[in-house]
Every structure is written in structure tokens, then in C-alpha cells.
């Protein structure tokens, strides 16, 4: 019999982490992540999870602890968001550069200033170029499934994974969730095999200074320079595309639930109008697409599950029939446009998909994103397409002030 519980996103994350049996945890409290830190403390104190939990004095230290622990050969976990994630920024680069399969939940929240404790995705988006894999969840079931898959992916390609889900909208909202059995997770997730060891028998200095050029070691073997190491990280993320898709497929086979791999689609087979986005906002656009279908618009949704690596091939394929694309996103690259819109346009360049891409900035700092507002933006853009007025532009949804 399946174990279905009605739980919040944070409880789902904590349960998933427990099932993956990490050996070292470190976390610093920040709203709306806090419940994960509390639950994992409780699980370790009760012995439900046999792990060392380091109650650190900052997020920077949380990731520093995991970097050292992962290097020493332990499976690790942390969670944060918002300014906590920004405070970790230096160590995000360090973790990825060290090729450590650390898994972290980012409970997406707006960043200060001004302060907001509410949801948007500016925190994770601001970490786009740190070398982490970023996977976004639609609902609480996907949180539990994605955390489990994240360990498998991270430990296969030696790249850390950030599992992103929307603060409050998912973290504090109860939904029915099927919890996998421990032995099933064990069967899916083999033990962590570290790529280096801190072994007195084989002493080495990890992450010393690299020269710009390649150098010979004592045996005369030419070793990588900094640039080769960085290229290998890029190769790791490129390889992760296949691994994410394959892991998702195998997970679906074993557990009966398919997160879609790199992207998921909703009614895209014949779609001419495609809405896209990441996380819960993308899940909501499926309702808008269904309503537009009732109005005779051939609407569909492509959800981006993997933001890094960016699934450009899968997106171009899924959007092949589009005449108009609308990106709804809860973040912005100030002075330009939404990051997903930029990336999508670049991905479609030269693929033959030449539909205009309308960017929609929505839900910043927790501003409500209503289906009606989505429909209005969609109808206006579709009208503009008919009259030839619709170019690549950016709209602000449900926001007052000057255009």
C-alpha cells in the first residue's frame, strides 16, 4: 500500500532528505526554509536520521561545512533561500568548482532591499552562473521526487544540485504526497562514491592555486590548468542533461511518477500559443491554457524543470509549432529583461522557431499571480500578434507604475 500523507513542501523536502540518508547536514535558519532545518534537527536528535548535524553560525559556514564534509567522503545536505543563498554565493562557486555532489533545497524567496519574506525566484536566478544544476518543482510531490533524484544526478556527474521550490506557495501549503519506501529509495540511489579522499596513505592538497597554463607533475605527466578544470565543469553540466532525463525516466519506471526530466509539457502537441516558466507559476499556467483552449486558442505549456543545464534542444523541439511564446517569470536581470526570456530567445535562435517571445515579469516579492491576469496578458499578446504589433517585449503583470 502506498504511503500518502498531506504535508507541506518543507515537510516533503525533509522526508525526502531523510530517505536519502545524508551523513552530514548543516543549516542556518531563514524564512521560509526554517521548517526543514527544524525537522532535520528533530529527526537526527531522535535517531530517525543517522547524521552529523552542524548547527552553524551562518549560511556561508553551512556550505563551507558541507564542502569539507563532502570532500572527506560524506553525503551532505543543506537548505536556504533569499539573502541566505546570496550570502553563500562564494561557496556555491567553491562547491561546483570542487565537483562536490552536494544537494541543497532553495525555498525561493525575494531578496532585499527592501525586505520581503515572500516568494519570487530572484534568489536562485542570481546564482545562475555558479555551476550548480538547478531543478524547479511544480508541487510538493515533485519536491520529494526531485530531492531523491537530485542525489542520483549529483553523484553521477559530480555537480551540486539546487532543488528550487516556491516559498509559502509550496513550502507552507499542504498537499497530498506519496512518500516512497526507504528500501525502494536505497535501490534507486547507490551509496556515495567520493572522487577524492583525504587519506594519510595518499596525501594530497585539494584545491591549491592553479596556474593559467598546464603543468607537469613530479612524474612528468602534463596536468590541467585552471581553464581545463573549468571546461570539465561545463562538460559535467552538459552531460547532466542526459543524466537528468535518464534519472527522471528510471524514477518514473520504479515509482510511477514522471517529473518530465528537463522539461514537462501540457497540451503542446498542436499548440500555437505556448506559455512557459519554472516552478509553481508554470503549473498555474496550465489552468490558463485550458481556459484559452475553451476560447478556441490552441494554447499549451512547457514547464522548465532544469534551468541549469538549460535544455535548449528540448525547448526548441517542444516549441516547434509555436506562433507566439509567453514567458512568465518571477525574476529579472535589471537593465535588461527576465533571465528565462533571454535564455529562451538565445536557445531558439537559428532553430527555425521564430515566434515572438513576450516576457512577463510576475509575482515579485509574493505579488499575487492570478489566472485572470495571465489570461489578459495572453489575450493582449495574441491580439498584438494578429495586428502585427507583438514583438519581443516585456510586460509587468499586476503591477502599478510607469511603463
Amino acid at each position, binding site marked *: 500500500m502506498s504511503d500518502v500523507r498531506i504535508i507541506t513542501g518543507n515537510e516533503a523536502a525533509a522526508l525526502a532528505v531523510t530517505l536519502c540518508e545524508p551523513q552530514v547536514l548543516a543549516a542556518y535558519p531563514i524564512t521560509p526554509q526554517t521548517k526543514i532545518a527544524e525537522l532535520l534537527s528533530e529527526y537526527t536528535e531522535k535517531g530517525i536520521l543517522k547524521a552529523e548535524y552542524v548547527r552553524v553560525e551562518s549560511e556561508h*559556514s553551512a556550505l563551507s561545512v558541507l564542502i569539507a*564534509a563532502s*570532500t572527506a567522503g560524506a553525503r551532505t545536505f543543506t537548505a536556504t533561500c533569499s539573502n541566505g543563498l546570496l550570502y553563500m554565493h562564494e*561557496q556555491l562557486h567553491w562547491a561546483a568548482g570542487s565537483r562536490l555532489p552536494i544537494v541543497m533545497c532553495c525555498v525561493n524567496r525575494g531578496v532585499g532591499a527592501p525586505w520581503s519574506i515572500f516568494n519570487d525566484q530572484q534568489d536562485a536566478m542570481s546564482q545562475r552562473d555558479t555551476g550548480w544544476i538547478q531543478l524547479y518543482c511544480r508541487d510538493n510531490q515533485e519536491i520529494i521526487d526531485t530531492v531523491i533524484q537530485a542525489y542520483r544526478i549529483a553523484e553521477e556527474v559530480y555537480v551540486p544540485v539546487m532543488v528550487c521550490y516556491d516559498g509559502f506557495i509550496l513550502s507552507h501549503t499542504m498537499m497530498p504526497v506519496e512518500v516512497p519506501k526507504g528500501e525502494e529509495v536505497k535501490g534507486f540511489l547507490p551509496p556515495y562514491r567520493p572522487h577524492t*579522499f583525504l587519506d*594519510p596513505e595518499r596525501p*594530497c592538497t585539494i584545491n*591549491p592555486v592553479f596556474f593559467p597554463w598546464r603543468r607537469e*607533475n613530479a612524474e612528468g605527466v602534463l596536468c590541467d590548468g585552471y581553464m581545463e578544470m573549468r571546461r570539465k565543469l561545463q562538460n559535467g553540466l552538459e552531460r547532466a542533461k542526459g543524466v537528468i532525463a535518464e534519472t527522471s525516466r528510471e524514477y518514473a519506471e520504479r515509482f510511477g511518477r514522471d517529473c518530465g526530466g528537463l522539461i514537462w509539457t501540457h497540451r503542446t502537441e498542436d499548440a500555437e500559443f505556448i506559455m512557459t516558466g519554472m516552478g509553481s507559476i508554470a503549473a498555474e499556467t496550465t489552468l490558463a491554457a485550458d481556459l484559452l483552449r475553451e476560447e478556441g486558442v490552441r494554447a499549451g505549456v512547457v514547464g522548465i524543470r532544469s534551468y541549469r543545464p538549460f535544455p535548449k534542444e528540448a525547448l526548441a523541439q517542444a516549441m516547434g509549432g509555436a506562433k507566439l511564446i509567453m514567458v512568465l517569470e518571477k525574476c529579472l536581470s535589471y537593465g535588461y529583461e527576465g533571465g528565462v526570456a533571454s535564455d529562451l530567445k538565445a536557445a531558439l535562435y537559428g532553430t527555425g522557431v521564430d515566434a515572438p517571445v513576450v516576457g512577463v515579469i510576475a509575482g515579485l516579492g509574493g505579488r499575487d499571480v492570478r489566472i485572470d491576469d495571465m489570461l489578459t496578458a495572453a489575450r493582449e499578446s495574441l491580439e498584438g500578434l494578429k495586428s502585427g504589433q507583438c514583438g519581443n517585449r516585456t510586460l509587468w503583470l499586476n503591477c502599478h507604475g510607469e511603463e
Partner: protein
Amino acid sequence: MQDNIFKVNEKEYILPGSRACQGCGLSIAYRFILKALRENTIVSIPPSCLCVLHGLYPSTSVIVPAINSAFASNGASASGLVAALKALNRPDMTVLALSGDGGTYDIGIQSLSGAAERNTDFIFACYDNEAYMNTGTQRSGSTPLGAVTTTTPVLTKQEHKKDFIRIMEAHNIPYIATVSPAFPIDLYDKFVKADRIKGTRYIHIDTPCPPGWGYPTKDTVKIGKMAVETCMFPLLEIEDGKLRLTGRSKTLAEKGKKPPIIEYVERQMRFRKMSIEQLNQLQAWVDRRWDDLVRRAGD
């Protein structure tokens, strides 16, 4: 490995030809630290002269496992090693975090304080060369009053250095000691002792630096001895709150007399712009601390 008449481990853990400067005080200290802690040691290193001493990829001059950490995070990095070794059931390993004064007094103080407050089972040692020497002698929270650095080039440092021993004492950790590479046996013995204690152990190493302090490279041991002799840098141990002076500092306390710091100051180019007023202020600072230590050691 055979020990000699000083009962010092004869094995060398630093290979000939490191990238440290000629006359480096850290090289002497590190050599004896590793002899004291022996094989089953993992070192955590923040950006600092130690990072340079360890060598540039793919070569290293040190034959113990080591991990580089980000500048602010050596206390946390060591905490991660300790947690992982516990989780992986390796109780035989010693974790040593070895930071410069910047990585201890300034950018590193948060993660060190956190690790000490948790009484993390590791040795944190600060090799204090009293400025950011790896980047070319910029002022740190440890630079003494009156010293010229490249960021106090005209007016000299206007403030006294932080009393870091008192900061660490406030964490109520089981063992605190000060050592100098000019007294290597005292240094060795304290690291051997620290290795046998559980919890957070803090060891402060006075680290003379020829290019940063401005003295001939042959004089590192002489300058180190004078720092102790003038009580600029007293040798001490604090175990479970009980302070005692050791070695030469103990003898000086018993004699009740010490030479003025001018003998130490005038040998170093970094003090070339020091005013008489600053010299008197620094002497008063040294006297106050010394009197306090002697009183506490006698209690």
C-alpha cells in the same frame, strides 16, 4: 620513527623546496606542528601564506592531506571535516585548521567563533605575522600600533592589535596556548599536548616575517626570541581557565624584570615611522598585559 633527545619526532612532513620565503617563521612552526601531530592529520587552509607554502598544482611540498577553504570559512571547513570523520567512523584523525591573522582576527572570526562555541573537536592554530603578508603587508586587526603597512603607509597603524587570547578565552574552550617558532620544543610539546585533548583547542603562533617586518632573513629566530624576551609575545597555556606562563616567559616572570620593547622595535623596518609617543603607548600596552598575565599565573 626514532625520536631524538628532545623526544621530537624525526620524520619530516614538509619536503625540501617549499614556496615559502627565505627565513619564513611559518615554515619553522609548521615543520614542528606536523612533527607533533604526525600522520593522521588533515589540515584545512584558508587563502594565506600557508596556501603558497603548500605549492602550486600539481605539486605540493607537504605530505599530509590538506584541503583549501574560502577565506572566511576555515573554522567551518574544519567543522565539516570533523563531522564527516565522525560520520565515517574515523576517530583516529586530527583536524588542524591553520589560518593567518587575517583568517583568524578579521574575515575568519565568525566561523572560528562558531566552531569554538560548538566545542568542535579540532585544533585551530593562528600563525600571526601581524598583517596580510600573502598580499604584500596590508594592515590587519593584528597589526601592532605604530607599524607601517601598505595600507597604513604614512601615518602607521593607529590602534593596538586585538587581544585574541581573551576573545578565545571567552569561548570557554578546554585548551589555549601561545607558541613561537623561536622556541620549537615548547611549540612541539604544546601541540603534542593539544592533540591529546578533546574539544576546541586554540594555539596562537607568533610568526616573524622578514619581508613584512623588515629585518634580515637570518634573524627570524632572533626576532622571535626578542618578542618573547620583551613580553610583546608571552608564552602561556590556559587549561580549563587556569593560566600559566611557560618556558622563557615563566623565567622572566620569576625574575620580575624584562627589557624594554625598544630593543625589539628598533630591529624592524615596519616600526621606522613610530613616534616616541607611540613607542610609549605600545610599551604601556605590553606592560599592562604582562602584569595581568603574571598576576593571573600567580593566582
